[in-house]
């Protein structure tokens, strides 16, 4: 390996990017755009879910023997519903509200029946045969996210109302015998979705840009004849591959710095761990995908065919690498496949570094996996370039 020849390739490629401002803009802008898009749309919580509320609860009139001050449980539950999460319309007609759900004008219709308060108090008291207080919910189940958000919101409102009524009336019967005390190992409980997502975006941006550009650059090398020319020069295949690898590593570092700054300044993402270790992971990710790009470019006859490889690499990587949901929850038969996705180790390692503050002593298995994969793809690329045709 001759360092000068290797750096000659690196320099040429970086100069090419300096001339090609638009591509450079893509390299830096694409991850920024993803960061903004995901940061703002994937805030984590569902909000402004339209629901219709039909409160027919007659309540308990004041002046009665049991509750002289009177009580309206239905109104209290409605009062506890979060108006940020649910966009409530108060209606008086249960059939009309259900019809709105049928027409997809609301995600749910919620009814508190006439005897809601009465039944609530009766079952709270020592009347074992009393019928339960029931809330009727008519739900559009076509969106699991919306449906579960509504049910979650309703449950938490009911628990909080029960809590307050229980203490008002000194009712010990309401005490729930289980109480969970939560303490946090990492994140301190205020981890936002974007905190969890930023390390994944960084890894994915490196993967996308490196794979795409390598495939396209190497298809050019093969098609234009420059590669033949390089192979007739004293340069070795390893010098070509590592020369390019260095250039991609430099691009990857540049990208990551931009993403990190954006994450910290715009979304207040905190980085707990060492930036140095994060950069190491990024370099390894760039190496793995550069090797992969060269190998794929060999089986593409032209640019059009080359572009077809991009979704082929992109989708399995995004879906199987635990970017949106944990690898544990993907179907059993796909789990082994996810072990072959380099991005998985990258995202794993980046999350551990940025969120948990782990160092090399804890994330070495992921780093080792990336090193091995880089050896395989870069080694394959060198072998592939060295091999003469037929």
């Amino acid at each position: 390996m001759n360092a000068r020849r290797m750096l000659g390739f690196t320099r040429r490629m970086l100069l090419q990017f300096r001339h090609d401002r638009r591509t450079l803009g893509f390299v830096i802008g694409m991850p920024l755009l993803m960061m903004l898009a995901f940061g703002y749309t994937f805030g984590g919580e569902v909000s402004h879910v339209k629901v219709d509320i039909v409160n027919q609860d007659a309540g308990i009139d004041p002046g009665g023997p049991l509750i002289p001050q009177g009580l309206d449980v239905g109104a209290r539950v409605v009062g506890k519903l979060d108006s940020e999460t649910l966009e409530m319309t108060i209606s008086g007609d249960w059939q009309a509200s259900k019809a709105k759900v049928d027409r997809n004008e609301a995600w749910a219709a919620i009814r508190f029946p006439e005897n809601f308060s009465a039944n609530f108090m009766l079952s709270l008291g020592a009347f074992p045969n009393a019928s339960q207080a029931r809330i009727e919910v008519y739900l559009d189940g076509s969106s699991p996210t919306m449906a579960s958000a509504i049910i979650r919101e309703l449950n938490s409102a009911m628990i909080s109302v029960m809590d307050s009524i229980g203490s008002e009336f000194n009712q010990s019967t309401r005490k729930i015998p289980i109480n969970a005390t939560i303490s946090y190992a990492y994140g301190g409980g205020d981890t936002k979705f974007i905190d969890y997502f930023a390390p994944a975006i960084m890894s994915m941006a490196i993967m996308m840009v490196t794979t795409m550009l390598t495939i396209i650059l190497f298809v050019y090398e093969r098609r234009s004849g420059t590669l033949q020319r390089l192979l007739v020069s004293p340069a070795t295949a390893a010098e070509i591959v590592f020369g390019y690898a260095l250039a991609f590593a430099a691009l990857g570092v540049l990208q990551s710095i931009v993403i990190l700054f954006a994450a910290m300044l715009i979304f207040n993402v905190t980085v707990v761990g060492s930036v140095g270790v994060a950069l190491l992971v990024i370099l390894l990710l760039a190496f793995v995908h550069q090797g992969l790009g060269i190998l794929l470019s060999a089986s593409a006859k032209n640019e059009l065919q080359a572009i077809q490889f991009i979704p082929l690499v992109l989708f399995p990587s995004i879906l199987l690498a635990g970017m949106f949901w944990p690898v544990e929850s993907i179907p059993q038969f796909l789990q082994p496949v996810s072990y072959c996705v380099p991005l998985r180790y990258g995202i794993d390692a980046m999350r551990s570094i940025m969120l948990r503050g782990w160092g090399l002593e804890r994330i070495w298995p992921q780093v080792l996996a990336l090193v091995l994969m880089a050896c395989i793809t870069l080694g394959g690329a060198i072998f592939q370039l060295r091999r003469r045709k037929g």
Partner: protein
Amino acid sequence: MAAIETGKLVKRFGKFTAVDNLDLTIEDGETYGLLGPNGSGKTTAIKMICGLLQPTSGSVKVLGRAMPSRAVLSSIGYMPQDVAIYVDNTVHENLQLFASLYGMSAGRFREREHEMLDFVDLSSWKDALASTLSGGMRHRLSLACALLHEPKLLILDEPTVGVDPELRASFWEYFEKLGKKGITVVITTHYMDEAGHCQKVGLLRQGRLIAEGNPEALMKEHAKKSLEDVFLAIARRDAK
């Protein structure tokens, strides 16, 4: 010593034989023209000589070494048929890459770059992106990249395609000058009339060498006024 020596060189792609039992000897310092129509196997032969393509059978020796040999690569200047330059880099950056590949010192590169740009008439385009050059200019840049490191053996695959007549004449002049310096120049072309500049030509047809010799001598031997007529005469005789 011969600069290039091939022995019973054969290349088959499936059932198609691109190069058929080619025995070629190109002497040191010779300017040799490999002539033939499109598809006659010129480029395939050149690629095997450069070590880019694995022969089906036969041997290739370049500067006394069996190919592929890394040791001889620094003595070869190769210009592929396609305009093999980086269009998203400037003229200077293209040359700079090749200077670093051949381990040229900064001083020598400056000197040679000046010389080469002057020769291919691109001096005022030094900092232009190659993508902004015309086809002919790109071709000239490609030639400059092959000549930059002063190779002992220059292999040019169709260097005059798409080059205007004036520049073509100056190319040939330069190749002859290189020949006088003792540099071996191997040129493939399908423009047979311009091969008169070569000391020796080989006529290739369907992968076989059908005639070889000094252009003048060949024309005299076959009593023809041009190499093209010689080629046609032999081709017709062959076909019978």
